[in-house]
């Protein structure tokens, strides 16, 4: 973003000099020059409030156990006076608020937690400076406020809901204002209107009063939800009132119109305890919070999303902030619960804007991409075009007119919206995959095959291959033991590359399909067996004879091959040692299955250049009882590699998929593999995957799938998702009152609510009833009944229909 000249011109000595000059000019108004640095001093106790005297040379700190005046010197705070005197100070010294009179420099007022309003005269010769004591409020006084120009007028606001105006020349309050509501949190005289003051209340209201009319308020409006902790009139602009509330907002109200109008709103991160306009800066205000957040923020109200400046010195919540001088914007004083008093220099403030990332990026619901950045970054973009109405294909730009009067707010960024191409944003594959995948209910190998097929059809060969691999790795080794020796005997002592696994299906019905795959596998072997031409021919023949056309070797798989050939560099290297096959089949397809060969097998391959895998294949094609689905040398590892050998690899693979964003794959594999892999992955990760996948499914409104996933998951945290809000409330059919404990008997009328019309027993499970005559009963009974009769089993004569 683009700022004009900042007020803090780091490394610009010329400007810096200018600023100093300016500060001297402004402070000259206050009749004494202000200078200083960021500094602090320790107090003995937490502060509740602070206030400065008019000439900005002294500050008073008040709290439950502290009431002191400090002098502000160039380099440090100097304790001037301790007002908390007496051996056992009374609760009158326990201050909720303090204010130094802006006209009379010897006059202070405090609000005590016990409900007393106390004034202090520093001119008194005695040690105890207490001047007047008003105990008219029944509850804690939250705020006291001197009239800005009238010397003897003091206003207080209390927890009891009353505001009182005191004339300091009299012993009692001169007028009482009843807010007619809950506690008063803040009262502030208007800086410009002599007679007006504002009061903020715990119930969220702000009231405006005329000091001459104690009978009722001039106007009232609701400013916040929850208590309004503070308010502050703009020092220059007569109509502006800033309020801060527990709802974490600071609002600026324009009071000049008939109805108070909210003109600015700043959202902070914690409830707002104090708000103070910054002198000489029309748009700036400082806030601090009552809980959790210890920082002081200075906001530019026109830019409510990021603080203009932040003071981060305090270690506990800041309880009081005040600008040191009413015409100097560079010095801020603050007191805190951490028992420190700080003077902050504006030039030492941290500027969150500098650290903020000036670029924003966001995806839209339909895959559109919005990008906002500093204007200068984008200006070189030749594609810039005005926003053409409804077409979102083109970047759009918003510009903010530079406001020459202010330095900070020169922000202009450009917002571009890019529409993503249809294909890339399309999530059809996700939906289809989710629908078509089988996650349970069939033997493991079938599930893998099925899912592999699904993935393949959706043009996702890598996923498809993964499924196939998984099937190979984790297929039950018990079934493989029989063909193992058999093959070996035929092949002599050569290690097997491609004997055939005998899977659980020995039925003829599988024959065709298996053969199809055999063909595929035989091709796969070629790189390893290039020396035997005849075998290839044979394969070709076999294939031809089978007439399988379902496997296409189109270009679609090209990418995938590349992928894997890169991944398995070893193998590729080895392949080069052999002359490549001469036949017409494209090579890429066979590689598809390569990854399922564990890498250490490459060694074997190298050892046996004349690997007679094809022989085995031939053997397989002869009508024996062993059919292979995929002719990869399973016996090789099934004999000495238990399935859990692959677990680390699979775990890595799942993490890989999950990290790639394909949590679908991760979860599906997790479910299909079940116990085989579950223990390898820690529960939290699993839970995380499940949650993400379920969330995705639900966004695509795939409720059934998501439910299936929940059901099949083994994490207790996931399965319990199905247990929530599963209560179904029913009313009794007799007395129409809700049935509380059981679905079939009513507590009140002690009648069984649902009796089967056929067997006259209580139905405790599924109850089916005719919508015509409202008789019904056990689902099964009614079904059977209506098979033989078309009339209602209850004998009401209705012709029920069961569809």
């Amino acid at each position, binding site marked *: 973003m683009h700022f004009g000249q900042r007020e803090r011109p780091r490394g610009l000595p010329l400007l810096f000099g200018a600023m100093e000059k300016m500060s001297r000019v402004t402070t000259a108004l206050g009749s004494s020059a202000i200078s200083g640095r960021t500094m602090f001093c320790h107090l003995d106790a937490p502060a509740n409030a602070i206030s400065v005297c008019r000439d900005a040379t002294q500050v008073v700190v008040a709290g*439950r156990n502290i009431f002191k005046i400090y002098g502000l010197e160039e380099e440090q705070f100097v304790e001037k006076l301790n007002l908390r005197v007496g051996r*056992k100070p*009374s*609760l*009158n010294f*326990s201050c*909720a608020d303090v204010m130094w009179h802006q006209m009379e420099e010897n006059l202070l007022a405090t609000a*005590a*937690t*016990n*409900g007393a309003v106390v004034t202090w005269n520093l001119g008194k010769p005695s040690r105890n400076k207490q001047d007047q004591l008003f*105990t008219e*409020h*029944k*509850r*804690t006084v939250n705020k006291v406020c001197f009239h800005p120009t009238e010397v003897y007028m003091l206003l207080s606001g209390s*927890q009891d809901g009353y505001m009182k105006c005191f004339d300091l020349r009299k012993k009692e309050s001169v007028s009482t204002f009843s807010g007619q509501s809950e506690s008063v949190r803040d009262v502030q005289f208007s800086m410009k209107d002599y007679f007006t003051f504002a009061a903020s209340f*715990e119930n969220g209201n702000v009231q405006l009063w005329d000091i001459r009319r104690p009978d009722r308020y001039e106007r009232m409006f609701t400013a916040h939800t*929850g*208590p309004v*902790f503070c308010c502050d009139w703009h020092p220059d602009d007569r109509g502006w009132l800033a309020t801060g509330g*527990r709802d974490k907002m600071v609002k600026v109200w324009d009071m000049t119109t008939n109805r108070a109008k909210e003109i600015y709103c700043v959202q902070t991160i*914690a*409830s707002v305890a104090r708000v103070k306009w910054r002198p000489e800066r029309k748009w700036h205000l400082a806030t601090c919070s*009552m*809980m*959790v957040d*210890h920082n002081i923020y200075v906001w530019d109200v026109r830019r409510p999303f990021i603080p203009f400046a932040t003071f981060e010195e305090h*270690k*506990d*919540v800041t309880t009081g902030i005040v600008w040191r001088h009413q015409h100097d914007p560079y010095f801020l004083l603050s007191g805190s619960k951490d028992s420190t008093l700080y003077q902050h220099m504006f030039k030492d403030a941290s500027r969150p804007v500098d650290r903020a990332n000036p670029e924003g990026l966001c995806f839209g619901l339909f895959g559109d991409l919005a990008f906002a950045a500093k204007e200068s970054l984008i200006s070189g973009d030749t594609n810039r075009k005005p926003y053409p109405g409804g077409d979102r294909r083109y970047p759009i730009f918003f510009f903010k007119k530079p406001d020459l009067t202010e330095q900070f707010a020169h922000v202009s960024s450009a917002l571009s919206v890019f529409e993503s191409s249809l294909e890339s944003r399309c999530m059809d594959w996700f939906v289809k995959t989710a629908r078509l995948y089988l996650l349970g209910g069939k033997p493991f190998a079938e599930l893998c095959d099925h899912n592999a097929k699904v993935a393949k059809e959706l043009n996702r060969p890598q996923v498809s291959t993964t499924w196939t691999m998984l099937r190979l790795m984790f297929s039950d080794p018990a079934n493989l033991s029989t063909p193992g020796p058999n093959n070996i005997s035929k092949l002599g002592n050569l290690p097997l590359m491609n004997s055939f696994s005998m899977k659980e299906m020995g039925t003829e019905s599988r024959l065709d399909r298996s053969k199809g795959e055999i063909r595929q596998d035989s091709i796969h072997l070629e790189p390893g067996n290039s020396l035997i031409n005849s075998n290839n021919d044979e394969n070709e023949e076999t294939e031809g004879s089978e007439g399988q056309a379902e496997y296409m070797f189109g270009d679609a798989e090209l990418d995938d091959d590349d992928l894997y050939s890169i991944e398995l560099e070893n193998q590729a290297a080895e392949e080069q040692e052999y002359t490549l096959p001469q036949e017409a089949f494209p090579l890429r397809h066979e590689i598809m299955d390569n990854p399922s060969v564990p890498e250490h097998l490459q060694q074997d391959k190298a050892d046996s250049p004349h690997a007679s895998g094809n022989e085995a294949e031939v053997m397989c094609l002869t009508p024996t009882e062993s059919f292979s689905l995929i002719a990869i040398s399973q016996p090789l590892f099934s004999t000495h590699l238990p399935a859990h050998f692959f677990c680390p690899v699979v775990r890595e693979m799942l993490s890989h998929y999950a990290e790639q964003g394909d949590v679908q794959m991760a979860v599906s594999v997790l479910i299909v593999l079940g116990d085989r892999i579950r223990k390898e992955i820690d529960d939290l990760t699993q839970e995380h995957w499940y949650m993400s996948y379920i969330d995705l499914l639900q966004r695509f409104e795939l409720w059934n799938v998501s439910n299936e996933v929940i059901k099949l998951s083994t994490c*207790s*945290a996931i399965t*319990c998702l199905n*247990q*929530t809000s599963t*209560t179904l*409330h029913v009313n009794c059919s007799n007395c129409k009152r*809700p*049935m*509380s*404990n*059981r679905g079939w*008997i009513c*507590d009140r009328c002690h009648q069984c609510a649902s009796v089967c019309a056929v067997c006259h027993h209580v139905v405790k499970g599924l109850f089916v009833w005719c919508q015509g005559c409202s008789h019904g009963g056990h689902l099964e009974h009614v079904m059977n009944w209506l098979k033989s009769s078309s009339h209602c089993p209850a004998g009401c004569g209705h012709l029920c229909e069961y569809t």
Partner: protein
Amino acid sequence: MNVSAESFTSNPFHICNICQKVIRKKEKGVRVPRPFSSGPSAFIPEEEIVEASQVDPHTEQILAEAYSPSGHVDHLTRVMGLHPHYLESFLRSQFYLLRMDGPLPLHCRHYIAIMAAARHQCSFLVSLHVREFYRMGMCLDWLKGLQYAPQRLRNLNEINKILAHRPWLITKEHIQNLVKTGEHSWSLAELVHAVVLLAHFHALASFVFGSGINPQVDTQNANGFQSVYISNYCTCDLASDHHLDRDLSSTSPGTTDSVSELEALMDRMKRLQEEREEDEASQEEMATRFEKEKKESLLVGSGDMKDEVMPTSKVSRFVEDATFGYQNFARHGEDNPPTFRAQDYSWKDHGFSLVNRLYSDIGLLLDDKFRTACDLTYYNMASHEDVDTTMLRRALFNYVHCMYGIRYDDYDYGEVNQLLERSLKVYIKTVTCYPERTTRRMYDSYWRQFRHSEKVHVNLLLMEARMQAELLYALRAITRYMT
């Protein structure tokens, strides 16, 4: 399932210690005040409640259906239904705590409720939530006892017992222990949820005992697993019969005519109201009044505590360190914990912000509940109408806080002394600090002229005051941990 075999075989019907005591008393010929065994409360005649709900029969029902888990109006709801306005905000916040989005899983919430209620041996709440827990159908073996629950929940026991009995002892170290990273650590949000649950159910136990809520007789629960856990409690009314020995020995306050008692109270309130203006008690005076009230609270009803035998009820399996009980906040000749200044950490300013930040929206609901409880008034006292009861309500509320060491700078604790008679103080102390000892006699002995609904109102105030006190201590500890 850990119901021991012998307990089944020897005696199918359990009689707890307390009842055995009562039975022995009966045998000795001592007159035992007979509780109302039917109806929702042992203290309040059923007709009274029925009558009240007749006026507005639907609200209660509708509310319960909307918010209570079973759609069933239980005894607690019926008694609280005497104040439908309050009931609504109560049920709403309870529903939110137990059912709606929150950091803790549903079954844990009920388990925490069980843990909290068990601290006060409140079998009513325990069995209610055991049933709810059972309904969840998860981790059922936790119901065998606290030692079967995961370590994480058991770690909560430490603050559970402190909050239940001596909340002023909670420190940021307790919070730190729970939150510090480790296998069984709690997140702050979860912890806040748990703390609110604990405070809620501790306070609710006070209400249950204070109003003598009768256990829910569940006739249909005769079969299955559930009954193993639930139905074999002794069906005695825990609330009304035990500790009658102490009760009998306490002096009967009913010596003065009760009508004049009421008049006197009204008089005092009026006088205080008028005195206000010229009341010029010095600050020292005010401070001593608080101290006096605090000190006096420990004389009130602090009977023979030591011989307390933990009843071997089914509830005790959810209790660890059962000997940890209430001790007076202010004790003679010891270093007392510092007084909690209400102005320095108030619910509205601080508690709310913290709670709402970590567990969104609960702050609003609790705020609403506290306000409703504090502002609830019908402008009448016993037979007198159009009375401003603010003072009395405030005295009750602040007296509870005073016993917990929370002081309001702007409150004159002399008022407590004027407005709350001794028998009432005994009752308040018992209900808030060790509610399991409440007896019908205590309930009956104060404010004889007042209606039952007004006494329930008192209980509501006590409950809310106690909950707020616990929350304030707990949340202050969390705040201190965070800063």
